[in-house]
């Protein structure tokens, strides 16, 4: 009998459905980005899967989704890897917000975008400054370059360019999460680790909680 690894135990503790939802979360991150491109939207929308899995299964599975997405993304654009910590943060924060019932009302959901944008914009800008010295390629990089050409220093330019960009990105992101959670049938919701939040039930005993979610 092969000893089960820590990761295996960790996932089993969350119920099997979580194992099958993590890949879907990763794919939704990518698909969200693709649809945004197809619709020619000026935002990324590439963390919906992370926040969704965080909200439905808990912070750690959400963090796994975020980390995996950035690792897979870095195969084609390796600079993304430096920002993996942001996506991990989104997942953990989404898990916490979900537990306190943020995603149950639309206005609390809307407010949560500020917190996500703080991580994405503020800490994202910090990473750009620390890892890349404030200068990195891509659309935002060109905006930063343009701001610096007008005489702004590199740090200010990063915050000025990235924080508003991220608010614009996270508002539709959390709204999409809210809309999707609304659309999940009760039958499926009952099997999710955090489904009790959305079914309006009492929190099951902390230890006994996976028992309701084990049978997929």
């Amino acid at each position, binding site marked *: 009998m092969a000893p089960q690894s820590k990761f295996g135990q960790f996932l089993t503790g969350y119920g099997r459905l979580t194992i099958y939802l993590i890949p879907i979360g990763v*794919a939704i991150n990518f698909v969200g980005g693709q649809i945004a491109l197809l*619709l020619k939207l000026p935002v990324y929308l590439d963390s919906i899967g992370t926040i969704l899995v965080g909200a439905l299964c808990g912070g750690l599975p959400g963090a796994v989704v975020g980390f995996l997405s950035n690792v897979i993304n870095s195969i084609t654009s390796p600079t993304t890897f430096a920002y993996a910590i942001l996506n991990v943060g989104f997942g953990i924060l989404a898990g916490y917000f979900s537990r306190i019932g943020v995603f149950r009302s639309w206005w609390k959901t809307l407010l949560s975008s500020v917190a996500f944008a703080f991580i994405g914009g503020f800490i994202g800008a910090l990473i750009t400054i620390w890892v890349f010295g404030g200068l990195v390629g891509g659309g935002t990089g060109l905006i930063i370059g343009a701001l610096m050409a007008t005489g702004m220093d590199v740090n200010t330019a990063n915050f000025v360019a990235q924080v508003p960009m991220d608010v614009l990105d996270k508002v539709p992101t959390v709204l999409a999460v809210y809309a999707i959670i609304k659309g999940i049938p009760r039958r499926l919701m009952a099997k999710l680790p955090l489904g009790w939040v959305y079914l309006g039930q009492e929190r099951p005993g902390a230890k006994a909680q996976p028992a309701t979610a084990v049978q997929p």
Partner: protein
Amino acid sequence: MTVTSLQEVADGYRQPRSLGNPILDLNPITTLCVIVALIVTGIALGGWVPSLAVCLLFMVAAVVAGRGRTYLPLILKLWLGVGLILFLLRALLTPGHVLIPLGRIAVTTEGIEQGLAFACVVMAICGGVTLFFEFVPMRHLTLALERLGVSPQASYVLLASFQAITDLGATAKVVLEAQTARGVETEGNVFMRVRAFFPVLAPVFLSAMAATEERAIALDARAFNSSTRHTSLVELRRTRRWEPVLAVALGVIAVGVIVGRALGWF
């Protein structure tokens, strides 16, 4: 399918999988160690020359392994899309001795030096990562990881993620066309297009979620959650004796260079 070709297909699974090239047939973990060691050595040596040398080495390796036709255009695109921009931004925006003044910004000697060094370092990492995934099929990587003791659940998550990206990407296109046909506006101003985003993404996720139930049953039927050792259809080639030696040797060189630099030997 004739009897002989059926026989051939069956025989294909009786032997370890070969990709028909000694470099491609290295154990995925060996490939990983070698690439990481080369990148670390290149970066630790400092300056742009070693990093660029590592980039060129990766390109040569790709050609020797017969993957030049796919790797070279890819890495060229990365050089233009990432490397060049990183270089230009630094060359133009770093203060220092002005070489070519361009209005408020200027090309400076320091900028060119820094830009070249930074672009080469980033490109060495990019080149290594893309080379690894060019050489190692994801299935072989997860199989090698499972043989090292990584849980099948973890490798399932990794493999299924790649599959799901392709699958859900295809579903998303279908849903987008279907919703357009039903009259959801996908053209027009930004607000119209943002509104179209939700009715496309929600069905993709919900249908994928509904499908997980069937997948769970299918996997259970194949005893996926059993804790005994899993069998696999494909076997990796046996790792040659010298492969770990090569990986460790390169690792020692990489560490040696870091230590050497830290102690100021060169």
